[in-house]
């Protein structure tokens, strides 16, 4: 504990703790049991953004965290406020995003009595938080908040929830903020074992067809430049998972793009033919591996991960290295030599020419891939946030990312409605960047109420609605596997997105022809205002190529082009 203490209420201590943690913004929504906290916020020097639905507060904190690398903070009241955070917390948990979610709770003496707006949020979030707390007394609030931020932002990052009964916020305490945390059950391994690194270097020296498979862990550990140096030194091609996109420059000659269900053919072929697969900060998700027994059948597998529980969870690993991606890659680069991979690199270059990502453009109807190419041409440094569905896959395929933290998407949980509030959070954290939310007409309608928030707080994000009048990804599966029976996936004519934007005071634009695509993009960027662009696109365009569910990833097929 630091020396001097000051007498204050729990609510005031809450504000002081946030200041000590350098929290520059939080996203929240008030409620009955949060009145003392919001009263303390009234004249506190901490930025608070009032959302229109608590789920958006969690997603915004998540988007802020992914865009900046700092811990995102959200705040909601007890009961329904807290349960509305759940989807956002689960989203952050699946993608290992550092977040601290604060919830109000009924007073301690009412706990368990089914009081008004009571929900057992620590119980509810047990499986979707890295850890959570029900604060027992005001005295313990500073230590718990210190621990919450520490746990959220270290090791394998993730969301931590702190539930604060009302009396904890009104009772007084002698405030002092702890300097360090003492958690005997929590000591994540950062520094990899040097013997394992040397063994890995030996494996690498023997490989002639290596592939690096890099995931979101590289971005979490800020290890992108180490990844680049490592790949260039050993001369191995790099494929990214969905959440790993941005960790390796998309236009680099060694880049294979994304792998898996909607990955590039050459990434999938390379993984299936490689003799050594070096997984870094990735977790062998089923959308990546396809049929797991057939995944990388000829490869020795090195798995670098900060979470020991990920090692050999889904696939047998030959050489585990537990440690953070950045430091481990730097060390591995030091000990490794270049692979004899010239022929392999040549073969991959030939695949890239023979099996490129492709689509057939049109002069009459807007193709979704074309929009992404035009956004890239207009603003290649933009932060691209997505919702979930076809547009998400097209964004992963057709926007070439140069830098980490510029592609933000719900990978693990696949949360529709994530993109718009996450884009808002990203823009708040990176006001210097142009931020696009690539959305489907389905997904955007799950969070469109946040137009009020972005207009009120002047957060100029651009929502590009890929409007095909369908819940497109499900429709695609219905087309392919359910005999074109489009059960409840047609949502055409649900709303006029331009008028919707205007109703909230945002700029609404529309493009119905390919020739209008670039002008509306330029107009949106130039306006500096929150903008919704309604791109009326080809209705039944499919995401291609595709690995059918349950198939090996080299059984990737082109879908019929419309």
């Amino acid at each position, binding site marked *: 504990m630091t020396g001097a203490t000051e007498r204050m209420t729990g609510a005031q201590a809450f504000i002081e703790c946030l200041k000590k943690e350098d929290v520059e913004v939080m996203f929240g929504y008030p409620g009955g049991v949060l009145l003392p906290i919001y009263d303390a916020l009234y004249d506190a020097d901490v930025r608070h953004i009032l959302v229109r639905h608590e789920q958006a507060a969690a997603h915004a904190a998540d988007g802020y965290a992914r865009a900046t690398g700092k811990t995102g903070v959200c705040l909601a009241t007890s009961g329904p406020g807290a349960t509305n955070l759940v989807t956002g917390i689960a989203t952050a948990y699946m993608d290992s995003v550092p977040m601290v979610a604060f919830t109000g709770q009924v007073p301690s003496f009412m706990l368990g009595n089914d009081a008004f707006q009571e929900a057992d949020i620590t119980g509810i979030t047990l499986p979707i938080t890295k850890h959570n707390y029900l604060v027992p007394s005001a005295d313990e609030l500073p230590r718990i908040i210190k621990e919450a931020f520490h746990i959220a932002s270290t090791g394998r990052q993730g969301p931590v929830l702190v539930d604060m009964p009302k009396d904890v916020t009104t009772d007084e305490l002698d405030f002092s903020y702890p300097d360090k945390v003492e958690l005997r*059950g929590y000591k994540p391994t950062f520094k990899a074992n040097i013997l394992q690194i040397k063994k890995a270097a030996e494996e690498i020296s023997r490989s002639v067809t290596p592939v690096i498979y890099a995931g979101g862990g590289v971005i979490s550990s800020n290890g992108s430049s180490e990844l680049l140096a490592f790949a260039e030194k050993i001369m191995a091609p790099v494929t990214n998972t969905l959440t790993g996109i941005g960790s390796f420059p998309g236009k680099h000659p060694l880049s294979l793009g994304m792998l898996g269900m909607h990955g590039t053919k050459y990434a999938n072929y390379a993984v299936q033919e490689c003799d050594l697969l070096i997984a870094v900060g990735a977790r062998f998700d089923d959308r990546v591996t396809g049929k797991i027994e057939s995944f990388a059948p000829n490869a020795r597998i090195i798995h670098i991960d900060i979470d020991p529980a990920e090692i050999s969870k889904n696939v047998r690993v030959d050489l585990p290295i537990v440690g953070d991606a950045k430091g481990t890659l730097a060390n591995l680069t030091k000990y490794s030599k270049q692979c004899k991979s010239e022929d392999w690199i040549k073969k991959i270059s030939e695949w890239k020419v023979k099996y490129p990502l492709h689509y057939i453009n049109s002069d009459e109807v807007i193709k979704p891939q074309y929009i992404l190419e035009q956004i890239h041409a207009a603003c290649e440094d933009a932060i691209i946030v997505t919702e979930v569905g076809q547009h998400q896959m097209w964004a992963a395929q057709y926007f070439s990312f140069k830098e980490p933290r510029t592609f933000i998407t719900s990978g693990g949980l696949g949360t529709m409605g994530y993109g718009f509030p996450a884009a808002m959070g990203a823009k708040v954290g990176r006001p210097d960047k142009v931020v696009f939310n690539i959305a489907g007409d389905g997904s955007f309608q799950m969070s469109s109420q946040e137009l009020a928030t972005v207009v009120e707080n002047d957060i100029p994000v651009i929502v590009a609605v890929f409007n095909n009048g369908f819940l497109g990804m499900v429709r695609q599966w219905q087309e392919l596997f359910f005999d074109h029976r489009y059960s409840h996936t047609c949502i055409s004519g649900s709303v006029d997105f331009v008028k919707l934007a205007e109703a909230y005071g945002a700029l609404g634009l529309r493009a119905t022809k390919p020739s209008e695509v670039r002008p509306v993009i330029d107009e949106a960027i130039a306006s500096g205002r929150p903008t919704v662009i309604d791109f009326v696109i080809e209705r039944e365009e499919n995401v291609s190529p595709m690995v059918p569910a349950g198939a090996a990833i080299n059984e990737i097929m082109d879908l019929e082009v419309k």
Partner: protein
Amino acid sequence: MRHTLAVLVENKSGVLARVAGLFSRRGYNIDSLAVGVTEDPTISRMTIVVRGDDHVLEQVTKQLNKLIDVIRVTDLSAEESVERELALIKVTVDANNRSEIIQIADIFRARIIDVAAKSITIEVTGNEDKILGIEQLLRPFGIKEMVRTGKIALTRGGKSV
């Protein structure tokens, strides 16, 4: 394959729910779970008997270690250890078979802890086979009620987990 895990955890409310929840949501099977405070009042010790192959055991151990409130996980199956379980068994008796039942209890070095006109309650301590053995012998008389603690275990010798 069954494994006995000694799990040292923070002695706080909610820890049992975290551990039990982990087992159920990841589909691991618990045969028994016994928990109590240790020589250090801030630490509780759980003895968990889990069923599964080496891969399952590795995952269980790693996932338990990820819980912030879990301090240490030790696989006692891999160590030399002593194991005990306690059971209380209430058996139906009458004047004709009372002495036979008492004799069975004696053979198992069990204790009679309650006697009534129509029942006897027996306390027996031992490994799983022993508990199973006395249960099988008493069953024909009619077991009215039975409770078991689940296995607890310590390493042999001076070493601790």
